């Protein structure tokens, strides 16, 4: 029995506030839900402010303001002020577009603690290939502006077959831009990225090369830039510790107010979610069906149920188990102990097959705002 199932709900640390699904980009690896229409009505300012207060009462320490593209919300400054009033460490996670230099200064003045800027590629063509738009110059401008107003900068890079060879260039870019943090995260193959998996999954060789480079840079830049490398679980023996455990540390609130244990959770058929418009965050966190469904270890099947590592990876990703096996309560097939690990091995083999064709589908429903 885990602590979670004996002493009630654990303390959440982070609120992921997805302020909008609107986004000027359409990245092929974006894992936002694919049906946009359902999300037509965004929460208003006052509701978000209430949610931020409820988050603090629940013990939450950080808020990630994200989207979509949070910069398209014109109440962002007001939300940052509220988040800081509740003593939350406030991260803005943005593509930086639409860019507005004065606005970054206002956000910093409002109390924003950190800016996480997504960069698709260091090469303009690569950037256009993956996001449907060449926006590298704009990113460079945003990074410079962030530094000018004293905003600590993280570069967020999602790695895939098309850009993984440029890990050295991403590191050089982070140095040039004065970033304090560089997050090199391999694509998580869910949602749209799963549709494009054969085009996006790098080869094992490319992955280990990138990892070696990142490890060396981490040593060299220690104390200057914190370098994180998140591996794709397709090339590991064990799954990633999803969100540090289902409904254990994170709450995601979607633009229309649904509270989710993870931002992919709506992909799991049959799970019911509550809305912050109807219930407090505390009620949802402590007792709702979706949050309690895979919390702790009572739900676990074999081999997780008796595995020594279940407190480390929590049985892996529920959404991946559902997407690949049709069963959200199965052991994540990324684990080599899973009886269905063959589905991962097959994808790995396809990634190394040099003859394979790899067309990439861009998402098309996105609104140009």
């Amino acid at each position, binding site marked *: 029995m885990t602590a979670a199932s004996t002493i009630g709900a654990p*303390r959440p*640390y*982070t609120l992921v506030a997805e302020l909008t699904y609107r986004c000027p980009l359409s990245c092929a690896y974006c894992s936002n839900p694919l049906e946009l229409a359902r999300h037509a009505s965004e929460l208003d300012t006052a509701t978000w402010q209430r949610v931020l207060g409820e988050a603090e009462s629940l*013990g939450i*320490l*950080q808020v*990630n303001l994200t989207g979509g593209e949070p910069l398209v919300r014109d109440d962002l400054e007001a939300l940052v002020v509220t988040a800081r009033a509740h*003593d939350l*460490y406030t*991260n803005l996670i943005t593509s930086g577009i639409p860019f507005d230099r004065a606005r970054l200064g206002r956000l910093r003045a409002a109390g924003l*603690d*950190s800016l*996480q800027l997504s960069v698709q590629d260091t090469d303009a063509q690569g950037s256009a290939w993956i996001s449907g738009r060449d926006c590298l110059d704009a990113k460079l401008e945003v990074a410079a502006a962030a530094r000018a107003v*004293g905003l*600590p900068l*993280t570069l967020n890079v999602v790695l895939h077959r098309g850009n993984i060879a440029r890990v050295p260039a991403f590191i050089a870019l982070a140095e040039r831009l004065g970033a*304090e*943090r560089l997050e090199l995260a391999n694509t998580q193959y869910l949602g749209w990225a799963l549709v494009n998996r054969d085009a996006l999954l790098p080869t094992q060789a490319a992955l280990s090369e990138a990892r070696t480079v990142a490890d060396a840079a981490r040593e060299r830049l*220690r*104390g*200057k*830039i*914190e370098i994180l490398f998140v591996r794709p679980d397709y090339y590991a023996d064990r799954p990633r510790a999803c969100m540090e455990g289902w409904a254990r540390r994170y709450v995601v609130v979607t633009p229309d107010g649904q509270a989710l244990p993870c931002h992919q959770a709506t992909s799991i058929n049959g799970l019911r979610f509550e809305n912050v418009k109807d219930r407090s965050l505390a009620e949802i966190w402590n007792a709702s069906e979706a949050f309690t469904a895979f919390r702790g270890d009572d739900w676990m099947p074999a081999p997780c149920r008796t595995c020594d590592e279940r407190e480390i990876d929590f049985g892996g990703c529920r959404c991946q188990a559902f997407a690949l096996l049709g069963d959200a309560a199965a052991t994540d097939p990324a684990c080599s102990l899973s009886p269905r690990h063959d589905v991962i091995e097959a994808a790995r083999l396809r990634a190394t097959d040099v003859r394979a064709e790899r067309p990439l589908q861009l998402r098309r429903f996105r609104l140009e705002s």
Partner: protein
Amino acid sequence: MIGPASRPRLAPKVRFRFDKRSGKHMLLYPERGLELTAQAARIAELCAEQLTVAAMVERLVSEHPGVPHARIEADVLTFLRQLDDRGLLAETGT
């Protein structure tokens, strides 16, 4: 590496705050946080004063009469090096 002559301060991305619920001080930084012991919290606080590590140690020695200097110095260096490993310190020149 952090030594007695270093002047460590917290990196700009790090926020030092008190957490009512646990009754402890914390260091918060993007996506992460560290819960501090009372001693560690005092060291983190001293990082705001632009002191050398040696001066921090002197200060702590005077605050804890009876605790050997060498013990305090070792604790301070261990803690600061842990922060440095996590990228949480910015060092200003000595």
